[in-house]
């Protein structure tokens, strides 16, 4: 292990802190959507015309409390990610940070001059530019992390800014659809931070799998299931950002049937029967079908995760850390099924719906970690069998992370 790849416990702790802060951010963002408060503060990046960081406390009320907290917490996560990028990249990250910061500063100043209606975006870019330039100025002679971690750091750096921009544009452009991208990208962003946190520490080593015949099958099962979970999260984000409450309000049946009718008369009847206090958009046939697909995919995921866990336990034993993590994954999915049912039966209570979002993203992260462990183990075994340990495949992310 080279000096640059030697685990730095403080870097690891900082990466964990960033990931935890991001999970909380996703939770607050989930509450914003669950409470229907996404548009409670009509302007951005200002809040009710005030500098976001100086909004008088009397305005922190109702839905504005959730939306404004989300904005402030997101700003803090932005700071943490810029610092993490700088830390991962070492002194070599200073120049690119300075270039990006300067470019953003110029764009931030130029945008409002070219197009006055983009004043908000200009302020946003200028603010970020200040933070990025500050990070570039920090002088610290620590070693950079591995190339893969540095790349992941830069990916998080880009994503956190895109996320901020998407969140703001969703408000000022009145685009509900942007909310779906914002939610989906949040899952990817958090997953990347968790991978950084994992591989800046030492614990991942215990997940190294022994050689066994079913390893490629296990990798395919885990990868396929993780992709399915991500698709499920996209479906969930689409459902939540329709702002139509529950399109099906009973469980396990759906409008009293195994598969609900979606003809115009039935949809009219469902809408007449609904008595929503918030999220009053009438439901549509598409939304009913979407929830049914979400339920079906949930069953598939439960089956696939159970199969993966069973395969792991059977092949490498219950005591292996990989098996324990696989069983933990199954536990998360079971909890997720319960939370999904509770979301329906509680009439989409904000706290339960938000917990459903959080367990969803934790399931994705667990699946991603298992994918990396199986891939890494396969590559490591493959290298061992070809006696080429001294020339690792640098194109592989899993191998690179493990180096």
């Amino acid at each position, binding site marked *: 292990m080279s000096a640059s790849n030697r685990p730095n416990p403080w870097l690891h702790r900082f990466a964990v802190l960033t990931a935890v802060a991001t999970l909380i951010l996703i939770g607050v963002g989930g509450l914003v959507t669950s409470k229907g*408060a996404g548009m*409670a503060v*009509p302007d951005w990046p200002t809040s009710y015309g005030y500098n976001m960081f100086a909004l008088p406390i009397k305005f922190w*009320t109702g839905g*504005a409390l959730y939306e404004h907290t989300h904005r402030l917490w997101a700003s803090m996560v932005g700071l943490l990610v810029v610092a993490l990028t700088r830390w991962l990249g070492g002194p070599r990250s200073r120049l690119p940070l300075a270039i990006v910061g300067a470019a953003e500063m110029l764009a931030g100043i130029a945008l409002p001059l070219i197009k006055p209606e983009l004043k908000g975006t200009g302020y946003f870019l200028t603010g970020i530019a200040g933070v990025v330039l500050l990070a570039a100025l920090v002088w610290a002679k620590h070693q950079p992390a591995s190339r893969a971690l540095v790349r992941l750091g830069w990916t998080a750096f880009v994503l956190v800014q895109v996320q901020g921009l998407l969140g703001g544009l969703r408000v000022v452009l009145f685009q509900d659809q942007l909310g779906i991208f914002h939610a989906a990208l949040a899952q990817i962003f958090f997953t990347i931070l968790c991978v950084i946190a994992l591989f800046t520490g030492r614990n991942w080593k215990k997940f190294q799998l022994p050689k066994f015949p079913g390893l490629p099958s296990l990798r395919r099962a885990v990868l396929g299931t993780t992709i399915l979970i991500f698709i499920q999260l996209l479906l969930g984000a689409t459902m939540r950002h329709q702002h139509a409450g529950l399109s099906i309000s009973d469980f396990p049946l759906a409008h009293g049937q195994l598969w609900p009718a979606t003809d115009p008369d039935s949809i009219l009847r469902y809408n*007449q029967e*609904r008595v*929503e*206090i918030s999220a009053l*958009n009438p439901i549509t046939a598409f939304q009913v079908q979407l929830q049914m697909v979400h339920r079906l995919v949930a069953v598939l995921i439960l089956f696939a995760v159970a199969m993966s866990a069973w395969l792991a336990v059977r092949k490498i034993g219950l005591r292996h850390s990989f098996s324990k993590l696989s069983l933990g994954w199954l536990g998360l999915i079971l909890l997720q099924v319960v939370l999904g049912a509770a979301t329906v039966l509680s009439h989409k209570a904000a706290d339960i719906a938000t917990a459903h979002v959080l367990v969803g993203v934790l399931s994705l992260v667990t699946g991603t970690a298992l994918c990396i462990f199986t891939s890494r183990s396969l590559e490591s075994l493959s290298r061992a069998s070809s006696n080429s340990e001294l020339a690792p495949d640098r194109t592989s992310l899993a191998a690179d992370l493990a180096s």
Partner: protein
Amino acid sequence: MIMKTTPLLALGIALATGVANAGDITGTVTLSGTPPAEKVITPLKDDATCGKLHPGETPTTKFFVVGPNKELADVVVMLKGVTGKSTGASAKPAELDQKGCLYIPQILAVQTGQKLLVKNSDPTLHNVHTKPTSSGNPEQNHAQMAGSPELTFTFAAPENFLKFQCDVHPWMFAWVTVVDSPFYAVTDESGKFTIKDVPPGKYTVTALHRKAAPKGVDKEVEVSSSGATVDFTLEVK
């Protein structure tokens, strides 16, 4: 096409000769079937500021405002297919108030081009967020602090049930139907309506209710100088 041309032709002739022969269309809207029970708006009660504005009973949702004899309030009744006849620009502005963290009234109708004044009578901030479905009416979202002046809205395109909402208090909704003529009314608590000064002729009258008839129920009517009567029965399926 005939349906659309006939009232327009009648209107054209009538407007050219003045409204001396115009009559009122009156009627009553009733509901058949049993509507679902309304819900108490618990988040309103739980809100530190809004809860205090309702020291007695907590308000409930008001999707079906039904009288003792099934009379249905909050039904928008209007002449169908009559467009381009708005007198909104010179009409008295309509008003929508935010009081007790509720929109009052919850259902109203205005003409295209007519001013709609939105007041905030509450000791707290609201955001007035319109959610139009017609591309002719852009979405808007404005903060309105306690005690600040009323906001003025106008809508260029006709649209049924254009939603107003407050995202600070996500139980607050109003639906504004934008009509391209002055020939509309909203039923009162006795289910009655009067569409005033309709020129003589044959018309299609449509009754819209957000839950019971979101796409409208139509009836044909012939208006003479003495007016006409048309009643509707909307159905809960």
